[in-house]
């Protein structure tokens, strides 16, 4: 399996929030309440990456950058990574594997149920990202991965309900997500600026370069 240059760059960038978090924690610099800070940071990163992954297809369609389909996979997988981390912090560090507490939390809080549903739905999407499985699935793969639109809506709703006070950020994310979904629908999916500039071609060939095994 060859990895493109764009994928390597994306993976490195995706690891930065995790690296910073671990670094700050090690330096005792993750606020006085590291569990709450880590929960928020992993949650925000997961949402950011999921929304970015939704931007890849329109970027490919509009600017003809096929390299973004490979990047999309990396973004999606890291979104799952951070979402899983977000959930594990909740289970392991915040509620200390105490099933009595955890089940009560899940039972009483719709926003947790919604977030959990989104995480569970991301599992089949992540597993089927393995190229061999992806190839075997053929058209079914595309159909299955349309699930991500629904997951994104769940995640935004989870974010909205989880936000205290000023909800302008989740509203902004909802707007961006709806915009990205709209770009997939006729007539917006016919937008194409490919011919207008050759710069896109050179970007695409740079990101598509597969020098790594």
């Amino acid at each position: 399996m060859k990895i493109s240059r764009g994928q390597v760059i994306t993976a490195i960038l995706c690891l930065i929030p995790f690296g910073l978090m671990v670094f700050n924690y090690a330096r005792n610099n993750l606020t006085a309440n590291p569990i709450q800070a880590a929960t928020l940071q992993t949650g925000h990163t997961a949402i950011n990456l999921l929304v970015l992954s939704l931007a890849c297809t329109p970027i490919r369609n509009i600017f003809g950058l096929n390299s973004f389909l490979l990047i999309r996979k990396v973004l999606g997988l890291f979104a799952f990574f951070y979402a899983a981390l977000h959930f594990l912090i909740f289970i392991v560090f915040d509620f200390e594997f105490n099933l009595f507490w955890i089940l009560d939390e899940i039972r009483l809080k719709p926003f947790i149920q919604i977030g959990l549903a989104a995480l569970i739905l991301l599992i089949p999407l992540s597993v089927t990202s393995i190229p061999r499985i992806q190839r075997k699935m053929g058209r079914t793969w595309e159909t299955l991965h349309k699930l991500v639109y629904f997951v994104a809506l769940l995640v935004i709703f989870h974010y909205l309900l989880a936000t205290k006070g000023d909800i302008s950020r989740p509203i902004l994310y909802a707007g961006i997500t709806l915009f990205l979904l709209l770009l997939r629908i006729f007539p917006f999916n016919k937008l194409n600026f490919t011919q207008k500039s050759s710069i896109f071609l050179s970007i695409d060939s740079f990101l598509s370069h597969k020098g790594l095994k």
Partner: protein
Amino acid sequence: MNNPISESEITPEALYLSRRRFMRNALSLSAASLLAGSCSSTPKSVLPTATVDATPPALSKFQDEFGNSVTSYENIISYTNYYEFSGDKSRPTELAKDLITYPWSVQVDGYVNNPQSFSIDQIRSSFEQEERIFRMRCVEGWSMVIPWIGFPLSRILDIVEPTSEAKYVRFETMLDPEQMPGQKSGAFPWPYIEGLRLDEARHDLAILATGLYGKNLTPQNGAPIRLVIPWKYGFKSIKSIVKISLVSEMPVSLWMALSPNEYGFYANVNPNVPHPRWTQASEQRIGQGGRIDTLMFNGYEDAVAGLYEGMDLSINF
């Protein structure tokens, strides 16, 4: 965690000041009501009375009545909810550092016989400042144990003399978007408002705090004067107060106005009344590590449950 205050310097100074204050009270106050207000009851725990020449601790005690250790000074001043500055917990420390907290005055008005404005100097000198170690439980599910310096709110109420129409006390934070950048956000109905029923306000555990750890309050902790109601969620303990009004109708707090299904008027710490976002059954004690059960009325049940006799606390949350 280090305590950044040197243990040798604070207490003697505080002790010295508290004695001076007391003497100044006795000498300079002419109004009989003021004298009665400031001297009638003996303070709960006065600043250290141990011998001054021995190296005394910065605090008279390092634990609350249950044996919980006080939270480190560093954690108390670095992790705050102060939406007038930022929605982030760490940022108010930096953003609030230049807040002008002197001169400062607190206007007390409404249904009272003696409405008046108290300067912060007057407040510090007229009211015996006591050390009170209280648990602080944030609605977000974290808590601290904080050694406040302050005095019972009832002392100030005794001076202004609420009339019979007064049923509630309404508190207001300074409104100054130039100094408080968070107030430029249209997401909140500024200024910050909080309220108490008059009998709650008169309870001995309801204090106005001017300091913590033997020092004046830092801006991010609500300088120069704030409310501390230890049996209620932290957001009731309004910061940087400029106005206290005795009113007849239940005040609508900022959080009630913003999200009435989440934040009630009473906001008593109650592990049995769930919040849609955070667990109220248990909490993370800052700096300690490990989740602990949340206690009814934050552990002050014996002292305050009587205020709510016959009330359904799941309705009056």
